[in-house]
């Protein structure tokens, strides 16, 4: 039971006993002050309910306290003993109701959903861009919150929120239950995804579901990295993936990425065993039974890590990758881990100094590795872009024009958004004639996408990856709910033409295109998952070497 409720019940019981005693004592020692004691249960009741909130099951206690207050009016011993006794009896009733009646101090997850959903509906700045059908989402998710309230299951509530956020296909749409970090989806997904079967599936360049990160013990079945899987538990890999509890949560704003990860959840379907059909070395279909092993979420996290180059280099560190090229690893858009940096001058000075040294060593090209960079502070992206971009002016972003009266961003007659302030950065071209390759993945998002986009505006920059950036760049606002914190963008940043900056639209088209798409083929799979190579980095180095030889 709630501590304050326990205190209330105990205090009222004691008060009832004392008042019963006082009824007789007041007769022996007449004093009008005795009357005031009969107000005590009411005062206690109001104070404790004010602190802990009202619980309907404690209503008998409140009624008892009010009845006890009548002892102030009528001063006969009999009447006062009756009201004291009534207080005691009703307090016991309240205690029994709390203990025996289900639903004591229930969490109202549904009310939280209504509050959060209303806020989303009103404030989400990309709703029109993504053509969100709020009514359909409401009808789809409300029953899940009803269930969470009925079962009082926090996990159901959190997964429903994560699913709802996932349906917006926006990396900046998140939910964290109270007392948990923003990366809350990890522990919850870890739990619901359950066991894996020693492999994951990705889509290769030809559209096949291919096995990756395959446990060496599966070799006996003939399953290895690159094996094409044609069915999972008798279903197509895509159909099987849709059965995963993570299916509505792990979504992508970009259709390319959505396709790339189409089969990502497939190999987690099944409890003890899974029936896997694949093409063997001779191209013949074979079906085997695989036993569950390890946690599937951990396996997927490993796949993503390897896919992103598995680099352990610290943020803003350099690594020579060839005689003429160095790699600048930017793990996050935070300098010294801070979001409140006002002046990036010292950071730029440090990078200038580093580049000067590298150039003296004969390095003239740079690979900027933004894979796995989940963003941070946009001004840092601007500062880095200013260093590397070719000389000239670049529009980093434009503000939307906020219409205070209608509480929305103003639109022009052609349907595009009206453009407010323009934010310009000036390229310094610190590398001179040197070329720049920017490595990205679907884990490159938010402020890292600002950097990717800005760098991409320069002719000396090539954006390269197996797949594009995530496509979520609008800054996030938060709504504090009773049982958690909901985050999603309220603000809208635009391109100069009034189109939405970077973020994926209803068709899954984002504002950043790859210049070079490296094929995710057997060579890449073998290199990454068998040899532990950074295949994308190798292709970037080759690309720069080819550019040098061509020039």
């Amino acid at each position, binding site marked *: 039971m709630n501590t304050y409720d326990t205190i209330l019940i105990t205090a009222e019981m004691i008060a009832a006993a004392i008042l019963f005693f006082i009824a007789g004592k007041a007769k022996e020692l007449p004093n*009008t002050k005795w009357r005031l004691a009969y107000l005590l249960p009411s005062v206690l009741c*109001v104070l404790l*309910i*004010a602190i802990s909130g009202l619980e309907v099951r404690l209503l008998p206690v409140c009624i008892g306290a009010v009845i006890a*207050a009548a002892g*102030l009016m009528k001063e006969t011993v009999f009447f006062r003993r009756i009201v004291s006794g009534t207080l005691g009896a009703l307090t016991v009733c309240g205690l029994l109701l709390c203990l025996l009646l289900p639903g004591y101090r229930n969490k109202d997850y549904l009310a939280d959903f209504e509050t959060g959903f209303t*806020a989303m509906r009103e404030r989400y700045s990309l709703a029109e861009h993504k053509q969100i059908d709020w009514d359909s989402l409401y009808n789809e998710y409300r029953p899940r919150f009803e269930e969470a309230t009925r079962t009082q299951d926090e996990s159901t509530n959190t997964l429903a929120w994560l699913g709802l956020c996932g349906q917006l296909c926006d990396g900046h749409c998140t939910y964290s239950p109270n007392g948990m970090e923003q990366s809350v989806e990890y522990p919850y997904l870890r739990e619901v995804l359950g066991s894996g079967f020693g492999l994951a599936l990705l889509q290769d360049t030809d559209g096949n579901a291919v096995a990756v990160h395959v446990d060496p013990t599966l070799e006996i079945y003939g399953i290895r990295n690159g094996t094409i899987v044609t069915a999972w538990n008798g279903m197509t890999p895509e159909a099987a993936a849709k059965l995963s509890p993570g299916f509505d949560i792990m979504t992508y704003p970009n259709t390319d990425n959505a396709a790339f990860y189409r089969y990502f959840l497939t190999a987690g379907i099944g409890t003890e065993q899974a029936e896997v059909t694949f093409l063997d070395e001779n191209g013949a279909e074979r079906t085997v039974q695989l036993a569950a092993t390890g946690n599937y979420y951990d396996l997927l996290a490993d796949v993503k890590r390897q896919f992103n180059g598995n680099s352990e280099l610290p943020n803003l560190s350099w690594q020579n990758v060839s005689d003429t090229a160095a790699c600048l690893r930017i793990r996050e858009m935070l300098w010294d881990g801070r979001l409140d940096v006002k002046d990036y001058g010292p950071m730029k000075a440090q990078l200038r100094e580093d580049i000067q040294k590298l150039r003296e060593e004969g390095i003239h090209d740079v690979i900027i590795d933004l894979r796995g960079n989940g963003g941070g502070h946009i001004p840092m992206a601007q500062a880095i872009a200013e260093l590397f971009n070719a000389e000239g002016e670049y529009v980093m972003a434009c503000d939307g024009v906020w219409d205070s009266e209608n509480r929305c961003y103003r639109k022009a007659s052609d349907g595009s958004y009206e453009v407010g302030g323009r934010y310009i950065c000036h390229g310094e071209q610190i590398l001179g004639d040197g070329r720049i390759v920017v490595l990205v993945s679907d884990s490159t998002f938010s402020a890292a996408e600002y950097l990717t986009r800005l760098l991409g505006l320069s002719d000396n920059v090539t954006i390269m990856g197996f797949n594009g950036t995530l496509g979520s760049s609008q800054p996030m606002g938060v709504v504090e709910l009773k049982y958690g914190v909901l985050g999603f963008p309220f*603000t809208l940043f635009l391109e100069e033409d009034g189109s939405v900056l970077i973020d994926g639209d209803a068709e899954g088209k984002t504002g950043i295109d790859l210049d070079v798409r490296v094929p995710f083929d057997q060579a890449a799979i073998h290199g990454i998952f068998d040899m532990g190579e950074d295949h994308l980095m190798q292709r970037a180095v080759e690309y720069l070497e080819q550019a040098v030889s061509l020039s």
Partner: protein
Amino acid sequence: MKRIIKTHTYQLMHDRSMHLMFLLVVFLSAALGFFSEGGSTDDVPLSSCHFILGNWNAFMNIPYLFIGYAVGTICAGDFGDKTLYIELLSGVRRVQLVLGRGIVAIVYSFLCSVVITLTPIVVTSFAYGWGEYFTVQDFLLRWVVSLFPLLRSICAFVMLAFLLKNHYILMALGFGGMMSSIQFGVLFSEAPPALLSCTSTVKLGSFDTWQVFSMGDEVHLVVETAIRDGVISSVILGSLIASALYIVLSCAIFHGDDMN
């Protein structure tokens, strides 16, 4: 009872210290409006809307300072010089004595509180303009509803006057009420809005706000003015019931009370 009401009304009209106290509190309230920064910044200038958003609890609680003084003087002032006992000996019923004083104290304190709470709004409107976050009607709705918890507090002070029989303690309680109401309101955030007058005031002053911003420093504050269903009715009903209860308790406490 009419005679008691008339007597105290006449007394109030000629009580210079009461007038002075009222003017002092009005001045304090005006100063709060004039010197407050609200939630303003260099980019977002002060306006009445800003003042209301940032200082609701402060200006809605300033009247306690005056209520403590006025109710204390009207209801408990005559305990000190025993005038009240003379009235009793002259044949006035106790309930008439309580209600006569109580009605004057409630009406006078309530009317003065209306002026005190409106003063900073008028001052900021003239000095800085109304602002754009919500309309005057939106404010008036919340303000009118929040007068009910104020009425409830006045009735509570009347009850305390007949309980404590000391107008100095009432004045101190008025000052304490002004200082502590905000803290209590925040401390009791889980409580139903209608439970206490401070929870009602805090709830009515809680505007849900959110912001959109530019890549520069410009910030647009959006204020949700709607009040949740049931809050208004529960606050009004709760306040009226509690007010009536306090008056009944005042009569009950004074009825048959020792006169020493």
